[in-house]
């Protein structure tokens, strides 16, 4: 979280604690603060305040967005279409949806190419199937960085009258806000806001309805009250991050290019994702004959916090579905996500040290497995 967002959060806990539906002064003040946060975020996203709802997290916003499209489109059918690299909030919901109805045709996963970009002709074939209620695509993948061709995906969905749910959880604050969607979901963490705040955008033109009883919260799009202090901190973070985004994008891209070059110089490596059309702050590579868990621990010992999509680092012992869908190596995977500049002022030096130590760390892990000379 940005330091300014943290300051706002602490102040807002004092000012915005009351129930915004109450008529006493504290309640009215809380209402005004919530409305202000909503207006600022709506403006940043290029939509109207009434189209923006706050939910408890990005994945919750995504699931809610999906359920509302499915419910509103129930007369047309119950079939869902999603790219194979979507967030698990989409994929697990879709698989459950099909399994619960004992009808595998109710959920279609659209393949991606080796860079992670969706196969648009396969998407078109999938949304053309009668009974399809919605399609889901992300603006960019948070694991490998590859951006999706949203404008074309949205155009072909529109041709078939299918609403497109866009997951912007990885890109908001790093890339311009998506313009091509019928429902949009985001998470305040991606632009330096606090944990615990998701944003759901349902434009007025979209047919959307939350299943279940009516709610008077958040334009009837949730039954969970938003935490006003989190919404204010998210709006503050958005202001700051959007103001610096062009410079941030240039500096992050330069660091990612350095990291890609350094990773590509390692022996037996798959540097993953589109080399150019990608998020500016994410880099992933997989190393042959390397235990992902051991490498994460070795890098942690040297003071670097990296992620991994390898099976041995996941709670399920399954490798990342994103890497698997792309057909790239899943073991020995390292994912570097660059923090925003105000959060990590020494980033440039840290990256230089990482690049200097990475070959040793990899060699140590390979030697431990007796795989130095394979």
């Amino acid at each position: 979280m940005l330091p300014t967002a943290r300051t706002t959060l602490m102040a807002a806990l004092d000012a915005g604690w009351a129930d915004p539906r109450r008529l006493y002064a504290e309640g009215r003040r809380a209402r005004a603060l919530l409305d202000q946060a909503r207006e600022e975020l709506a403006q940043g996203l290029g939509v109207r305040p009434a189209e923006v709802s706050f939910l408890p997290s990005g994945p919750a916003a995504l699931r809610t967005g999906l359920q509302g499209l499915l419910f509103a489109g129930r007369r047309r059918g119950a079939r869902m279409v999603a790219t194979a690299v979507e967030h698990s909030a989409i994929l697990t919901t879709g698989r459950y949806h099909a399994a619960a109805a004992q009808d595998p045709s109710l959920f279609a996963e659209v393949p991606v190419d080796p860079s992670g970009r969706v196969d648009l002709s396969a998407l078109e074939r999938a949304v053309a199937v009668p009974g399809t209620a919605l399609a889901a695509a992300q603006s960019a993948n948070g694991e490998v960085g590859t951006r999706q061709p949203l404008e074309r995906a949205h155009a072909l969905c529109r041709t078939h009258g299918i609403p497109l749910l866009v997951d912007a959880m990885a890109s908001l604050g790093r890339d311009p806000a998506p313009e091509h969607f019928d429902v949009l979901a985001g998470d305040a963490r991606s632009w330096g806001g606090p944990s615990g705040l998701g944003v759901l955008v349902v434009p007025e033109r979209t047919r959307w309805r939350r299943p279940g009883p009516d709610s008077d919260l958040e334009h009837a799009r949730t039954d969970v009250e938003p935490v006003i202090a989190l919404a204010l901190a998210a709006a503050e973070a958005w202001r700051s991050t959007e103001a610096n985004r062009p410079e941030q994008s240039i500096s992050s891209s330069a660091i990612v290019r350095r990291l890609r070059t350094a990773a590509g110089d390692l022996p037996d490596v798959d540097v993953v994702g589109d080399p150019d059309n990608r998020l500016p702050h994410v880099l992933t590579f997989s190393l042959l004959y390397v235990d992902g868990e051991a490498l994460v621990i070795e890098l942690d010992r040297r003071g670097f916090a990296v992620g991994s999509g390898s099976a041995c680092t996941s709670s399920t012992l399954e490798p990342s579905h994103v890497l698997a869908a792309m057909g790239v190596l899943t073991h020995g995977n390292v994912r570097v996500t660059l923090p925003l500049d105000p959060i990590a002022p020494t980033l440039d030096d840290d990256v230089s040290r990482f690049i200097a130590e990475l070959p040793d760390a990899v060699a140590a892990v390979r030697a431990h497995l007796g795989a130095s000379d394979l």
Partner: protein
Amino acid sequence: MNPSEDPANPLEVDARGLPCPLPVIRLAEAARNAPAGTRFVLLASDPAARYDIPAWCRMRDHKLHEMAEVSDPSGPEDPAAAGARPRYLRFVVLIGPQPSKAGGTGTGSARSSRAR
């Protein structure tokens, strides 16, 4: 003729029960210095093998001839899968041309595959 080029009698690597990346490593060890055209069968139960064996073949110019899921009625009981028969994957790999490692320094191969 190398006996392992005989499709009816390939060399077998049993990596069932080993976690990733050990199935790939066991196969690579067995295939070290094997002449082009050698046929290996790898058995692996780790879920990552499904993706990593094809990726290894691509990175090292070997040919993945076959990949099939096998249910093993005679296999040992799998306590994690309550009653279900253990399942594993069976790969058939044809080794491609390999550079000689004679005189290698032991610091790993200089190969690298950049992002495509």
